[in-house]
């Protein structure tokens, strides 16, 4: 499907598309909303109970709206070098079955997307020697256009539109999944491998977007309903909507593209300096390297921080960060009520002078001033299995 396929016959309005589990979500009481051009479940029984269930047990998320891409070259051309021209991570150093978080960078170093890239081992369900990548749903078509523009012609990109993606997250995810796919216990955080269930090929990585242990499972959309049924038949597992996905990732301190990250933000400003691999820094060879390395050396003028908000009222995206004189010096980019903390939390961009942990700052929302304290992230400790 190209961009043009999103425009329906009647005119300019993009059609909202349905994913393979659409009917499955509705049958389970999912309240459907439009997200990234698709009908997606925002909640089933409620954001709060779903959130707490994931922290305590295991939740199944349908993330089939995300873009699953394969990259390969013919005739042994330099795939890693090609990807390194747009990503700041050490792709050449990525071993088979290893995943890495990386950033798609514009020429000036602004963040076009954040993504996960994995080196495929020789045996994999896609029959491809190369790289598997998961990008954000809302940005996937722009990402593909950018790759096509920037990468050499001998790099072949396959957008697997018929492939579904499930995330199973929570401390009991491993128990539930291992009952169906015993080998997954051998995976550790940020590794991936091919598996089989009911004769169907699976590609499973041990990673996620909640701060909990968990897995992301890629399967042909034709078989995903049977797998979702089998997973939800496990006593540990309930389906979870986008609402809890957002509150879980916020507690985990993980940024959301289009909210906490955009093309005006660089990796250092976003406090994602870990995504700049050592070799790539030394080579200063990624887009925007001069600017980004100067920010890394001298410190950025503004920085993404976590905030604990005083009182009970959530302070949400768009609220202003105020200086002592009441002038606006920053913005809240994500905010809400943290079910696991029973308190409001937020992420914001603030001037360097206000970015130290423990700094008290003022926020303004709908004419009301709120007080907050800069807090180290994650708000809720990660529990990855390394």
């Amino acid at each position, binding site marked *: 499907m190209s961009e043009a396929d999103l425009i329906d016959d009647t005119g300019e309005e993009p059609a909202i598309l349905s994913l393979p589990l659409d009917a499955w979500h509705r049958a389970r009481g999912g309240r459907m909303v439009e997200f990234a051009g698709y009908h997606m479940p*925002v*909640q089933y029984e*409620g*954001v*709060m*109970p779903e*959130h707490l269930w994931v922290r305590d047990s295991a939740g199944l998320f349908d993330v089939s709206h995300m873009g699953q891409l394969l990259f390969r070259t013919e005739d042994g051309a330099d795939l890693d070098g090609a990807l390194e021209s747009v990503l700041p991570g050490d792709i050449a150093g990525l071993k088979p079955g290893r995943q890495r978080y990386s950033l798609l960078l514009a020429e000036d170093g602004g963040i076009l997307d954040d993504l996960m890239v994995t080196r495929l081992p020789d045996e994999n369900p896609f029959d491809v020697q190369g790289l598997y990548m998961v990008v954000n749903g809302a940005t996937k078509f722009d990402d593909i256009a950018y790759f096509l523009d920037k990468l050499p012609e001998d790099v072949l990109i396959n957008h697997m539109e018929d492939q579904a993606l499930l995330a199973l997250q929570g401390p009991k995810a491993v128990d539930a999944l291992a009952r169906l796919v015993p080998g997954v216990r051998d995976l550790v955080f940020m590794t991936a491998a091919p598996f089989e269930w009911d004769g169907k090929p699976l590609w499973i990585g041990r990673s996620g977007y909640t701060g909990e242990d968990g897995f992301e499972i890629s399967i042909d959309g034709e078989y995903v309903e049977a797998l979702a049924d089998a997973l939800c038949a496990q006593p540990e597992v309930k389906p979870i909507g986008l*609402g809890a996905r*957002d*509150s879980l990732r916020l507690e985990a301190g993980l940024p959301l593209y289009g909210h906490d990250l955009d093309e005006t933000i660089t990796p250092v400003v976003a406090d994602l300096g870990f995504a700049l691999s050592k070799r790539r820094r030394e080579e200063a060879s990624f887009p925007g390297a001069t600017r980004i390395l100067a920010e890394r050396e001298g410190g950025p003028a503004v920085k993404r921080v976590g905030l604990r908000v005083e009182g*009970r*009222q*959530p302070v*949400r995206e768009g609220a202003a960060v105020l200086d002592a004189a009441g002038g606006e010096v920053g913005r809240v980019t994500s905010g*809400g*009520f943290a*079910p696991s903390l029973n308190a*409001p939390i937020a992420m914001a961009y603030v001037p360097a002078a206000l970015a130290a942990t423990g700094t008290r700052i003022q926020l303004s929302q*709908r004419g009301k001033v709120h007080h907050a304290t800069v807090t180290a992230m994650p708000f809720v400790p990660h529990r990855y299995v390394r």
Partner: protein
Amino acid sequence: MSRYFTEDHEWVDVEGDTGTVGISEFAQGQLGDIVFVDVPEAGKALTKGGDAAVVESVKAASDVYAPVSGTVTEGNPALADNPALVNEDAEGQGWFFKLTLSDPSELSSLMDETAYAAFVAKQ
């Protein structure tokens, strides 16, 4: 005592010139778990259809509008410690505020319980 509803899912119970305002059972179900309610203080003058209160769920903030014009006499103090009262008893203990009606004729534009039930059925 008579109960009236708005198309924005507020209710108001009227006794003499005193009104008690809250959000409907349907509305609390749509909002989900309520974590904070910002109720108006006594003395605040409200205009029919104007901002009166804010109700916050985990995922969103929603404005609550004044179903009728009047002057606030009391915000529900119980909601400060227990905003979940709105989920548990939206059309009872989970009331938001009381006010003195300045123009009771405004009530004629609101729905009664039967009309509101029909309105919700179409949502």
